[in-house]
């Protein structure tokens, strides 16, 4: 079985929003300088789930692919250290500022270049933009089914049973292979890479593929091909006001408070 996991590098979400700046001209988020990027938390769980499937199904191979500017090989190395077998980086100036459709096209082309695959795992959304479309559009582009928001996958021959997270529990659906599954945080804590996993990952070569290498269609990628446009981008401000309720007795104060809460539609 061959599992391909799509992993994205994002600014560390643990950093408080106030530290980020927004460039009003380009409408881009500018993370604080010197902040090391991390693997998107949902994608890390996708790697974890792939590793669990590999443990239960010996002979499974995991390939981690990532895309982005800068030293994105770090996230692939992290996935390799966790237990992925191979890694690929997709890097080209032409890829930058693609929207979900553009990204799905690039990933689909890279996956077609890889050739054979049984299962493609993505995070249910990237933990930076939280859009959550790429996995589904990737499946559509490849012409295969997609199951979203998974917390567990059980392989049964040429099918999989996927536990999907619902508001009040989970449902189990069956899907034929190959297919795309987007993975949710309910998978649980991803494993720490072992020391030996790190040693092996550090020595693995991670090839970088360009738009030409994968045969990406220039008309489908980059900002010109985007189906969506960011018209405004801002950090929300939260205003807090404090009003002290005064009254002669506690009972009176309680009544005043209750009325106030109803008036402001808190209750």
């Amino acid at each position, binding site marked *: 079985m061959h599992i391909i996991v799509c992993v994205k590098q994002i600014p560390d979400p643990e950093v408080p929003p106030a530290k980020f700046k927004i460039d009003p001209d380009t409408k881009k988020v500018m993370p604080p300088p010197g902040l090391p990027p991390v693997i998107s938390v949902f994608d890390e769980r996708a790697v974890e789930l792939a590793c669990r499937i590999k443990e239960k199904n010996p002979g499974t191979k995991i390939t981690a692919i990532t895309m982005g500017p800068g030293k994105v*090989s*770090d996230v692939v*190395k*992290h996935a390799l*250290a966790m237990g992925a077998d191979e890694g690929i980086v997709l890097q080209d100036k032409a890829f930058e500022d693609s929207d979900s459709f553009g990204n799905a096209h690039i990933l689909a082309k890279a996956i077609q270049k890889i050739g054979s695959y049984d299962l493609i795992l993505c995070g249910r959304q990237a933990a930076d933009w939280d859009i959550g479309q790429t996995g589904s559009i990737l499946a559509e582009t490849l012409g295969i089914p997609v199951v979203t928001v998974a917390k567990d996958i059980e392989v049964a021959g040429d099918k999989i049973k996927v536990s999907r997270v619902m508001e009040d529990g989970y449902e189990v659906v069956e899907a034929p292979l190959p297919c795309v599954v987007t993975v949710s945080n309910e998978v649980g*804590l991803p494993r*720490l*890479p*072992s*020391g*030996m996993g*790190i*040693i092996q*990952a*550090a020595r693995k070569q991670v090839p970088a593929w360009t738009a030409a290498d994968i045969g990406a269609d220039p008309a489908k990628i980059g900002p010109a091909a985007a189906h969506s446009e960011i018209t405004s981008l801002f950090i929300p401000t939260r205003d807090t006001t404090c009003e002290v309720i005064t009254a002669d007795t506690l009972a009176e104060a309680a009544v005043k408070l209750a009325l106030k809460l109803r008036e402001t539609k808190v209750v």
Partner: protein
Amino acid sequence: MNFDYTDEQVLFRNMAREFAEREILPFVTEDDRNTYYRPEIIQKMADLGLLGAPIPQEWGGLGTDTVAYCLVCEEIAKASASVFTTALTVHVSLFQMPILKWAGDALKKRYLPKTTKGKLLGAFCMTEPNVGSDSASIETTATQSGSNWVLNGSKMWISNGGIADLLLVLAQTDKTKKHKGIAAFLVERTMPGFASKDIHNKLGLKSSNTAELSFQDCKVPAENMVGQVGDGFKVGMYALDNGRTSTAAACVGIAQGAIDAAVKYSQERIQFGKPIASFQLVQELIVESIVETEAARFLVHRAAYLKDKGEPFTKEACMAKYYAAEVAARSATKAIKVHGGYGYSGEYPVERLYRDAMGLLLYEGTGEIQKLIIGRESIGIPAFA
């Protein structure tokens, strides 16, 4: 010249940081208050390969470079200097590293893989009630008797002394030969004649074990000697070169922990209507620590880099240890000042960092001893006596 970390170094640092957040930090305050040593943390570190990361793979380790090991030391000590002391500086640097360099293959084969897997915990035993900085004057004796050596004497302030399965013990075989008569032995805890007594009421490092040891006609098989008679002092000095490097890295971790806490608190604490971070004198306290800690980190990495190149690193390890320990103590002090009364209480981590830094000022040689070694190595005239 290259300031970039390798992929391996970055991955080890990240893994150690995540491990500390998941497995150490949830218990660190409670264990410090209860002076509780938590062995399961040590076993989990072994499972990840952290108990012997720089030991070559043929002896059960991972064969990482010393820079990667120092980054692990920094991250673990940032969370808990007690865990660092138990698992890293004592077990790896002071115990495994000299065995790796000085022991014969048979001893290494018998013991090292078990120590990297966490099956056996080590200790390094040099200091005695009357012998601290003047380590050539060891009074514990070793007398040959047939195929055994018989050890008599006592050891003091031995980290892991009460919990280690295996102890690397320095003893004098011939007092007239001074440091050239010292030999090193691997003593199993179960060997008759060995006893330990835990030391309580320490200022810091409360979740690590410290003990005094006694050897009364303790018979050790001759094959358990590490190196030859007369090598013991060199075994000890080599252990300390390694221990100083890892301890310096840990001091950087403590200093960084103090900085992180001070930065966070100064951004949250409001006085005169503003976060206290907006006051210049508060920024000064933090900035001084940031600069000094970065300088200390470079000293650590340079000592580690020289070791990896196979070059002498005694002077660089002493420089790193001397400076980093001072920086750890200063940064923790300044972090307490930033926190005010809250920093003086146990509610925030900075008072523990301060108490632990006091321990790291002392072990593997005080700053004063480091200065004497740096002086001897630089000037050529020893000023020890």
